[in-house]
């Protein structure tokens, strides 16, 4: 990464989560992965009804409780205690994944190690560690109508995570719809990756220089909208 780019400010985790949350429309059924995705539940605009699903068998739960206040029998898939909410319901694991696999999730948001230009996703195993955890990621990547990846644009060493072909083992092929990173918003389309938004202070050329496949810059490409 050039010194020029290193000096530019990237979005923090909260801001990435805020941008992700803008994708949630009224009535959407949404599953949030551990990490940045779960932060997105804090940024639902007032008056918008979004139904959150968690793999452990719940739909329609409320906000994460302040630390130490929650009920251990009311938690999201990350183990955070959440508030009860009217309309909420509980079910078994087989029903939970019937909902996922059956196509009843509008949006799934998760992290990734790599995303390819075709939308292949690798997020469960890093080769240097030799082991990984599939968990619910394969089901969610397959089942959700729209899969959003929230991640840092590059590795700590500056290597692109958006690549021509994933070098890590795949979670699912051709499943990603939208990538929200700390410097850009990129849509996966039939004609390749389309750069839709850039972080303030970043140019499309900057983003391209940290991305392996060639990006098509959307004619309307603009600064990431956070309001």
């Amino acid at each position, binding site marked *: 990464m050039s010194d020029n780019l290193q000096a530019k400010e990237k979005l923090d985790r909260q801001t990435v989560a805020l941008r992700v949350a803008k994708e949630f429309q009224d009535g959407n059924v949404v599953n949030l992965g551990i990490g940045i995705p779960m932060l997105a539940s804090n940024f639902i605009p007032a008056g918008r009804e979004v139904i959150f699903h968690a793999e452990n068998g719940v739909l329609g739960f409320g906000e994460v409780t302040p630390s130490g206040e929650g009920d251990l029998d009311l938690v999201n898939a990350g183990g955070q205690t959440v508030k009860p909410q009217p309309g909420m319901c509980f079910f078994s*694991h087989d029903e939970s994944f019937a909902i996922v696999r059956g196509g009843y999730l509008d949006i799934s948001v998760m992290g990734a190690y790599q995303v390819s230009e075709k939308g292949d996703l690798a997020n469960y195993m890093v080769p240097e560690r030799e082991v990984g955890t599939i968990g619910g990621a394969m089901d969610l990547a397959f089942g959700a109508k729209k899969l959003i990846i929230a991640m840092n644009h590059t590795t700590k060493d500056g290597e692109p995570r958006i690549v021509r072909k994933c070098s890590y083992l795949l979670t699912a092929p051709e499943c990603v719809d939208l990538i929200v990173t700390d410097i850009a918003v990129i849509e996966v389309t039939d004609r390749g990756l389309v750069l839709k938004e850039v972080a303030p202070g970043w140019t499309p050329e900057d983003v391209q220089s940290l991305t392996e496949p060639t990006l098509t810059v959307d004619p309307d490409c603009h600064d990431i909208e956070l309001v």
Partner: protein
Amino acid sequence: MPINKIVDSFDEAVADIEDGAVIMVGGFGTVVSTPSLLLEAVYRKGVKNLTTVSNSSGFGADVWKLQGAPFPEDMDILVRNERIKKAIVSAPVSALYVNNFEKLLRAGKVEIEMVPQGTLAERIRAAKAGLGGVYVPVGIGTVVEEEKEKKIIDGREYLLELPIKADFALIHAHKGDRWGNLVYRGTSRTFNPTMSGAARVTIAEVDEIVELGALDPECIVTPGVYVDRVVARPKVAPTQEGEITDHQALESKKRFENEIQESIRRAKERGMRDE
């Protein structure tokens, strides 16, 4: 004669689990939903070479104690004591730190069959429902499809996934009656109702045993016919020393705290994903 599936002690409940048994263990991993006292009893019994079927490999008792769970053991009690020969599991290791299961795996001391979480649930349900197999679309184009039969149905590709049937299913529920009817509490359902009935013998650890008829017939989640034994947790949490006979557990808190700090540091260095 009245049907009575209630047994008096955890040790009695697991008395016929032998070396080499296939056991399902309910619960999720990041939520308190595990049959903790049944797992302790299995550990106490000393059985080994188990094949386990579970969502995760456990965090260890200390994590749950920190969270305030009164009955803190999870799958880790079988993992750290090396009682498992093979684990059929969805989430065996942690992205944040090297857990005990990963250590055994690296040391070649345990076999693993990793299964996507929804497929795991469906394979367990298939066993309960008497199906020979199910065609699942999840895993196509990944390592999960290796050595599995593929089939194109109505233009889409599927993998043949076979039922997973156990000798024993150990599950946790909120309330149970003498017929074995069960209800759960909140997000602690997880794999517990799914596994009930998917084994030759299903053993339910419940927070409370209630009179027959006390559970609303509209709200019973697990019909009693799936359940063979019901055993109640003590009302008050046992003192740690009295109940947990495994001295490793008593030392693991410090170890865990060191480890998690260290691994978070390493993970940050590597730019580990958030997932």
